[in-house]
């Protein structure tokens, strides 16, 4: 079985820096971490491999990312934690991609890695919050998709059974392989690497490929290949300062009545 886990580098801090000109997130590689939802997806893949290995089957877990060269460090960390191999799509031509252009790049990456039986993505990324990559990948690869997977119940050679969230609550879903699952954070906590894993990963090869090397269509990648454009991004400005209500209880109650009256 071949599982591909898509991972994205996101800022470690929740304070995202925006480029005032392009209105896209500034990704300078400083303090980047693997998107926490993607980390849960990787852990599910590693558990699945352990289960199937115990049954005598060899499972390959590849990690795939599109990002700046510094993302290689994060992919090496994924290998340290147990991933078999990693591919980083890195090229200036990929920069400024929306979810559709990112999907095209990742699809090309999948072809490079070899078509998977199972694709695992985080449900969403903590910086962009779109939750679109998984479903779009399923569309591009013509696979079934189950979003917001909370529990991976079972995985056979031809189907996977999961508990997944939805508007009506949690459902038990069976999907035919190959398929795409997008994973909720609570599905699993990514394991830590061992000393042996860290040292081995230092000598592992993280493949880094450009757009042309993976056969990406230049018209479908990067800012130019993105049908959606961010017109403006901004940090909401602080609203008017709060009003302190003080004094005795009756005085405070009167002040509150007056304030509510002014607002109403």
């Amino acid at each position: 079985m071949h599982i591909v886990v898509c991972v994205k580098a996101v800022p470690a801090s929740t304070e995202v820096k925006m480029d005032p000109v392009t209105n896209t997130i500034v990704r300078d590689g400083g303090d980047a971490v693997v998107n926490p939802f993607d980390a849960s997806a990787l852990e599910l893949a590693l558990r699945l491999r352990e289960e199937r290995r115990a049954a005598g089957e060899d499972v390959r877990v590849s990690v795939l990312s599109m990002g700046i060269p510094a993302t290689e460090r994060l992919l090496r960390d994924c290998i340290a934690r147990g991933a078999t191999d990693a591919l980083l799509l890195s090229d200036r031509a990929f920069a400024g991609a929306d979810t559709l252009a990112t999907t095209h790049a990742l699809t090309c990456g999948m072809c490079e890695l070899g078509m998977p039986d199972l694709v695992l993505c985080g449900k969403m990324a903590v910086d962009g919050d779109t939750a679109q990559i998984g479903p779009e990948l399923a569309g591009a690869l013509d696979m079934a998709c189950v979003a917001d997977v909370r529990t991976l119940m079972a995985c056979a050679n031809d189907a996977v059974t999961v508990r997944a969230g939805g508007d009506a609550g949690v459902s038990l879903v069976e999907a035919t392989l190959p398929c795409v699952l997008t994973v909720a954070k609570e599905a699993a906590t990514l394991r830590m690497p061992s000393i042996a894993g860290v040292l081995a990963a230092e000598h592992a090869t993280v493949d880094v490929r450009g757009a042309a090397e993976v056969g990406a269509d230049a018209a479908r990648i990067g800012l130019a290949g993105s049908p959606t454009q961010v017109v403006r991004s901004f940090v909401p400005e602080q609203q008017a300062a709060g009003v302190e209500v003080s004094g005795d209880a009756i005085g405070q109650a009167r002040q509150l009545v007056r304030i509510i009256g002014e607002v109403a």
Partner: protein
Amino acid sequence: MAAIDKHAGSARIVPLTREHDDYLHDESRSHGEAESISFPTTEGEIRAVLRALHAAGTPVTVQGARTGLAAGAVPHGGHVLNLSRMNRVLGMRRDDAGAYFARVQPGVILSELRKNLHARSFATEGWDDASLQALRALADAPEQIFPTDPTEASACLGGMAACNASGARSYAHGAMRQHVNALRLVLATGDVLALRRGEQRACGRHLTLVTEGGTTLEVELPAYEMPACKNASGYFVEDDMDAIDLVIGSDGTLGVISELELALVPAPAVTWDVSCFFTVEHDALDATVAMRHELGCAAAIEYFDGAALDVLRRQRAESTAFSSLVEPPADAACCVYVELQCASEDEALAELARLGALLERAGGSAEHTWVARTELDREALTFFRHAVPESVNMLIDERRRIDPAITKLGSDMAVPNERLHEVMDLYRTTISEAGLEAAAWGHIGNNHLHVNILPRSAAEYAAGKELFARWARAVTDMGGAVSAEHGVGKLKRDFLEIMYGYQALAEMARVKLVFDPRGQLGRGNLFDEELLDSLRQAGALDGDAEKGGA
């Protein structure tokens, strides 16, 4: 009680009522009693309170955050001087070599200081120009930290100095003592002694100090030799010692620390935490010895035994608050945790390779390890470490509900390096013979474990106490210390006599009476009150009890 309801500066001395019940106990779960309480906010207010209480010789117990484990802050009658409102950072200094120092009031909480340092942001109201200049320089300097790391980050810095707190990173950075550069001590009379490292030294075992009020204190230091291991048992004394070291670790018995100047250090470039699991405890001990020899960047070497891991496993399964704990491997019988602080990732990788190799030789495995390199992973391991004592406390509280006589019983003893295996054999054999349940964890790099008896009945609690006395004698015979970091307080007083003997205790008490002739401060800490009173009486007969010098 002469001074109740009177003003002492703006710090009122008020009767202690039921609303102050919290101030009658600390984290040791011991309870005391007192008649009055005050909450000074400045050194001037401390002085006014002490002056008001001195005439009647009212006992005074100093409190900070009440996180102590030896009952040092639990009052034995008299007045509670609570310093929790003295929580301001007063200034900053940068010396010619580029080292930074923070000047703090004693009630500043460690976690708050850490936050301030990380953000390089302080409330600077009242700071002098030199401090503001140092803060501006800090903005462009490498991040600075205060390295002392007792597990309890809500401890206050005055309390940490009073008991010479240390914690995990003392393996590399030493205890609190090494990081206190200066302090101000208000004496029971309200006079002040200002001490700066390097400026007031003993001549052999004699110390002459002059207070700001012009009083000369002639101090004959005790003759005992301290153990060659981590130690917070009684007064620090050695030939030609620095006077500041006598105050650090004195358990609030000599005076009230009103200000501290703390030496800061640059934050390490790379910090990685590694948990190493073993199936046999003896292998973990061998690995610890090898780590001490072979690792150059270890800042902490910690230990969790099988019972501690089992408590965590149970807690994780039964409590939602602990459900996000990382689960120890099923076959792990114990864990050695190492914090590596390195100058670069390359150095950290080389250290990791050395650690992996030594684990394989010691019977462990480079595979059975967790390496935390990201903030998220490091936070998970911090939670793991802190959950052990918290879970044990919860377990004890649960058992206490069934039998109120049961309370926490945790050891704090350390031995020299070559005695690690011997002391562990002692713990294992005696616990097994007594049929007690126990969990051990702590600072194995310093041969300093907190062995916690988990009594199921009052009888087991009594048996545990007997066991501790037996360990105190054995640890003393090994050249160890009965208290390595919690201080002696009131709970380990009997062990101090086992460790040093009555004569040394009397010598310590005489030192106290030079600083505090009426024996007002920290009554019940270090010394039995009868010993102090008898020495005072004898001194009065000799005409020197209130001498102190002049």
